[in-house]
């Protein structure tokens, strides 16, 4: 039971981490909360669902398709709803409001076109389990965990080593100076949205597989926000650690205490942290960021 709960928790935590990393990446470079990130995740789930049920594709292709779709959607979102505001040096509050508008718009577009029905993914592994040290662990959980680790690891390596990754970190420090180094900052921001959206598409697909696909499932990004706050807003390592901690703790609460108390617990953590430890585990001081 313990080991099984731990693996489920890690797999949920991996998905939270995927969402939180994308959210944090955008926060760190543009300094605003992209509330439309949840809608990208939701639409990523619908895209994955379509590929899996309409075309009967294998998991790998479904994931690749959802990542590509989520990435492109996020880029489009930035291009249409944020770029003009950025060029005008609008306060980040305006960007946040625009993001909320996008979120409501996308959600309602789904209601209008696809409807409010809840959809389930076709079974990829027909509830297959492997036995591990006497506990049964779901194969899907292992896959979700492996994909999350792989995606986050690849992103980390890209940010640490590649020239473009260095440019993204430089942009986090000082966007204007980044443009004075000859970096086309519009393209850099688009790339950040592409990465965040791709991770969102991946997260959405696994959320959909684990639970269901429905128009308001994007609100799960509240969890990503909590994860990011636990780790420290704007810190990628913090987002990962925060996501995993939250996923594991939630799963244990559901398993050993009560699944109804799960969200009560998560949001209590959020408020307590904001009051007592606003910089989280790895965050920069807030005064510096604002």
């Amino acid at each position, binding site marked *: 039971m313990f080991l099984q709960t731990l693996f489920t928790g890690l797999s949920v935590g991996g998905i939270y981490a995927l969402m939180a990393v994308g959210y944090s990446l955008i926060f760190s470079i543009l300094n605003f909360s992209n509330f439309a990130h949840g809608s990208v995740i939701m639409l990523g789930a619908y895209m994955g669902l379509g590929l899996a049920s309409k075309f009967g594709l294998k998991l790998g292709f479904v994931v690749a398709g959802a990542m590509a779709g989520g990435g492109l959607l996020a880029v489009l979102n930035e291009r249409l709803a944020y770029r003009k505001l950025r060029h005008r040096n609008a306060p980040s509050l305006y960007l946040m409001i625009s993001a909320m508008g996008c979120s409501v718009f996308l959600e309602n577009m789904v209601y209008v076109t696809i409807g409010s029905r809840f959809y389930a993914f076709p079974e990829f592994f027909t509830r297959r389990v492997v036995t591990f040290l006497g506990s049964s662990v779901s194969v899907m959980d292992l896959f979700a965990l492996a994909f999350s680790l792989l995606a986050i690891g690849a992103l980390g390596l890209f940010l640490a080593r590649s020239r473009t990754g260095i*440019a993204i*970190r*430089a942009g986090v*420090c000082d966007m*204007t*100076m980044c443009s*004075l180094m*000859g970096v086309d*900052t519009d393209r850099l921001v688009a790339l950040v949205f592409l990465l965040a959206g791709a991770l969102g598409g991946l997260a959405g697909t696994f959320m959909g597989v684990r639970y269901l696909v429905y128009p308001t499932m994007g609100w799960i990004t509240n969890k990503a926000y909590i994860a990011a706050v636990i780790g420290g807003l704007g810190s990628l390592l913090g987002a990962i650690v925060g996501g995993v901690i939250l996923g594991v703790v939630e799963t244990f609460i559901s398993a050993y205490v009560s699944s109804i108390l799960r969200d009560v617990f998560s949001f209590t953590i959020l408020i307590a942290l904001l009051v007592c430890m606003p910089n989280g585990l790895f965050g920069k001081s807030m005064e510096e960021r604002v």
Partner: protein
Amino acid sequence: MLSVKDLHVHYGKIHAVRGVSFHVEEKEIVSIVGANGAGKSTIMWTLAHVLKPSSGEITFLGLPLPEKPHEVVHSGMCLVPERRRLFGALTVSENLVMGAYMRKDAEGIRRDMERTFELFPVLKGRLNQVAGTLSGGEQQMLAIARALMSSPRMMLLDEPSLGLAPILVDRLMDAIVALRESGMTILMVEQNADRALEISDRAYVLEVGTIIMEGSGKDLLDDPVVRKAYLGELA
């Protein structure tokens, strides 16, 4: 090489630069001196096209200044802004990689890296140090080195001596002269007017957004009005 005609820049409602004209020829060191708030930095940020002029004409290498800041860098002009603005969380070597961001020639980048270390030997031993932890002098060296990595034809230096100890100012001015010897064109603005004028071929005196005087560095250095107004000398 660079020519500015009747430049006006507004900061919101503030008319910060009011009809400024000047030019910089190849391999010159040209200074703009003036008091705090005269509009010196505004001119620099406008030349980098981070600020947009309200009117006026800027041509660089015979062409109108490109629209976007990164295109200005690609055209061969690089700004080292006031207070250096390094990427503080990145290492020294990552800062230099950023300087060379737009270049594709690995061989040339390596050669320029060597040349940079000849100019600023102190940086070589600190490649893996986080830039934010360097001393003020080292940060200024890195800021100039970073700009050099883009292999510019012309550098804009905004208050390069700000916050440096006098001995470091000497070394910095030597480095600027050495850069010119190697073919670089330099436009700098300085509050530290006497040090800037000493090494400048020509200079302009800026007061409340207008150029009130121009001449060779030496002439301005000897000019009683300049001495009184900007070099803190009692008449």
